[in-house]
């Protein structure tokens, strides 16, 4: 899931204070699970912003609502008309949701209420950890299921650096050395010798280095495009 954390009320206030009618718009999937931007947090932020507006003597109406996901257009459809009543939408979805929604709201700005952090897991309640960097070329089968790209501070591909120290990374004693973990895991799995195999140089074009990415499933697209071609602008079959 995508992990995010709420922006401070001060930062949000600076974004919204010039507007009159603001909607704090929650997303009830990833950011809800990490207690950053689900409906509950959207209502909490809305309440705090109204209190702040009262403190500052500003006349700003702040409401809240939410949908299940901000990253698929169908979820917006039932609320699109409601969204148009506001002059600012503060989305508490991840950056994906903010982008995706702002493409659809015309002249109404969509601002972020959450800092999108990483792809992560719920290690324990309230504890979220980054485990994948979305590089587009997965090698976890070669590294004992531990990703050096996401979990090594330097994204090293060929073993630990000189900063490894009794299993910890030099940046902090609270951060594990990913390569230490990889070696220990592969010992346990009995696959340590795999590390000796020579790997070709990595192609980073599948990651951010290749520019904005898109996954297009031909088998689904072909059908959808055919349907679109057979449908007139009023939605009827041609």
């Amino acid at each position: 899931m995508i992990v995010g954390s709420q922006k401070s009320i001060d930062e949000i206030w600076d974004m919204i204070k010039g507007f009159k009618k603001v909607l704090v718009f929650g997303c009830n999937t990833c950011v809800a699970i990490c207690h950053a931007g689900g409906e509950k947090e959207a209502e909490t932020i809305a309440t705090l912003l109204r209190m702040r507006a009262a403190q500052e003597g500003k006349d700003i109406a702040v409401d809240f609502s939410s949908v299940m996901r901000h990253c698929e257009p169908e979820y917006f459809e039932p609320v699109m008309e409601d969204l148009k009543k506001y002059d600012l939408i503060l989305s508490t979805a991840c950056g994906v949701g903010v982008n995706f929604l702002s493409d659809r709201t015309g002249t109404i700005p969509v601002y972020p209420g959450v800092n999108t952090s990483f792809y992560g897991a719920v290690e324990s309640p309230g504890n979220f950890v980054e485990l994948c960097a979305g590089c587009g070329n997965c090698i976890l089968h070669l590294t004992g299921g531990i990703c050096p790209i996401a979990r090594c501070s330097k994204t090293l591909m060929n073993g630990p650096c000189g900063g490894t120290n009794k299993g910890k990374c030099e940046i902090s004693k609270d951060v594990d050395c990913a390569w230490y973990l990889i070696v220990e895991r592969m010992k346990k799995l009995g696959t340590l010798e795999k590390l000796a195999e020579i790997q070709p140089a990595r192609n980073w074009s599948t990651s951010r280095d290749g520019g904005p990415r898109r996954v297009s499933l031909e088998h689904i697209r072909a059908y959808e495009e055919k349907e679109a071609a057979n449908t007139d602008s009023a939605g009827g079959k041609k």
Partner: protein
Amino acid sequence: MAAESAIKMKGTHLQRVAALKETRPYSPCRAACPVNTDVQAYVGLIAQGRYNEAFEVIRSVNPVASVCSLICHHPCERACRRCSIDEPLAVRPLKRFALEQASEYRRDRRALVEKTRDRSIGIIGSGPAGLTAANDLADLGYKVTVYDRHPALGGMLVSAIPAYRLPREALKEDIDDVIAKGVEVKTNCEIGRDISMKELSEKHDAILIAVGLSLSRSLNIPGVEGPGVMLAIPFLEDVAFDRKPDLGKKVLVIGGGNVAMDVARSARRLGVKNVEMVCLEGPDEMPAWKWEVEEATEEDIKIHHRWGPKSVVREGAKVKGLEVVKVLSVFDSERRFSPTFDQNQTTVIGADTIIITIGQMANVSFLKDTQVRIDDRGRVVWDPKTQMTGAKGVFVSGEVVTGPGAAIQAAASGHRSALAIHLYLQGESIEGKLPTYEKEKISDMPADVASKIGREPRMKLRHLPPKVRCESFVQFESGYDEKTALTEAGRCRGCGGGAVVDAKKCMACLTCQRVCPYGAPVVSAWSEIRPEFCQACGLCAPECPGQAISMVSYDVREIRDTMASIVGAVEPKRPDPVIVAFLCMRHMGTSGFSLPDNVRKVPVHCTSRIDIIDILKAFECGADGVAVVRCSTETCKYKGIEDRVSARVDRAKQLIGMLGMEAGRLEIMNSDSGAENPYSGVCAGFSGKIKQMGLRTNK
């Protein structure tokens, strides 16, 4: 107590809850009630001091509510899931309490129902079945006339239930509710004597026979004819209408059922010191309720068990006693009633008067020469699927066809007949449309849940001492006072009132599963909260990040949505700080509400239901300080909630800190359960601290 605002919610929250509950398994108490009274709902409302709403819940399904509050055999209590912890909830006494508290409201709400339908129904008999049907049909806008042969309405309730159990004033409340709707009443009017069935069918579009079982069965034994031998119903009628029967010095009651108990205990109250009973059954076989037997025993009524009547012994015309024969067994191997006797073992129990109380039957002589068919055993032939007799438009209800039962069972039958009549008059089919009152119910309390629930003794009812109560027909049971009632209501585990997940909002995040102390939620594609585990504490709802959890028994948004009116106007130059105090009602009793005006009270059944947003809302509405006052860990009705609530308060402190507010404006504290008012001290102390801190101001 907030009653006015609470009643206003009638059209919204209570109805929403009722509709939601229909989609879910019933609490066992509700499923056990012959009219499915929502016990959990009204007990919950009592616990919140919302007595008028509790009355509404009760009265919505039970037109003989006052009667049931005093004499119901309360199957709800036997079904109570608290039985697997300690003792069942005292449901009947709580019902009595609610009705007593709401008596003024009840009288005020009585109103004529407009007659919107030009059809008329004649109801013969005004017992619980007839009254219930009259109530329902009047509500539907029909013209209803009730006929009763007695000078007063109520059927057996007035003529055969002694006033020490059912004071006439209580019965009158139920009757007045029905009459007020515009039901016409013809008392002292016996069908077949004062008016014929034919005349009745000409006058009305439908007729309901609800005459109950008004004839006592007698015994076919030597000596039974003649003075000194009475039948139960005529005797009880004499008692009811103050025609004092001459009983002599010693009364012997034949029978071991509840009517026999009424007879024997009435005889004691007529001044007979020596009252004995004789029955076929042993102590554990008697059909009378156990408590009736215990109370009769307290009143010095001796019971001769396992003797069967053989002959009435007379000296001349005067009764001297009853010859009885030893019973060998009462039931056969298949538990069918089939007594066997040892004819060699007999004795005589002396008595001046013998009262036979061995069962009743219906008096249906007025149906002779009508199209209503009577079978060879003297019973009305009817179709239980339509409540109709063989005669078109003539319906039947209550004990006359169901056989002996409780008032609330007759009321259920009355509901069915009323609907049947309505459908019939609308020209619609009836079959399959009448309520069966058989609903899926929540299963037993899982053992690991029961083990997490503290034992709390059931609140006892006070009875007049046996010596005093035998001196008159004064009601011998005292109802609960408010403190006792609120304590007892707090024992309810809220079965069926717990958490419900809106699958459209749930993202299966596992939060509820992690926080629930009872293991109720199971999360797969979405969370399902198992009602047999849920204790309705409300801990999960405020934690749900998708706000997908609601509580059946209360509105999770109620506090924040009504906070502005709770806080009210906040004057800029207020002498004292405005404090919003969330108060655990656990020890609130009646005094908890008496706090200074600057403390705005938000009673909650447990602090576990308080949401961070509720707290913020209090500040938003202008509170200078917010106190969360809980009971102690030892007394908390729920387990394992304290740290979660504290964590919530800490988070709320952080959030107000982001707005530059002092964390000290919010505090969680324990109530002083030892003090007479468990809240006044802690609230005063907190109020003082906030006063020192200063009032909040906005630009």
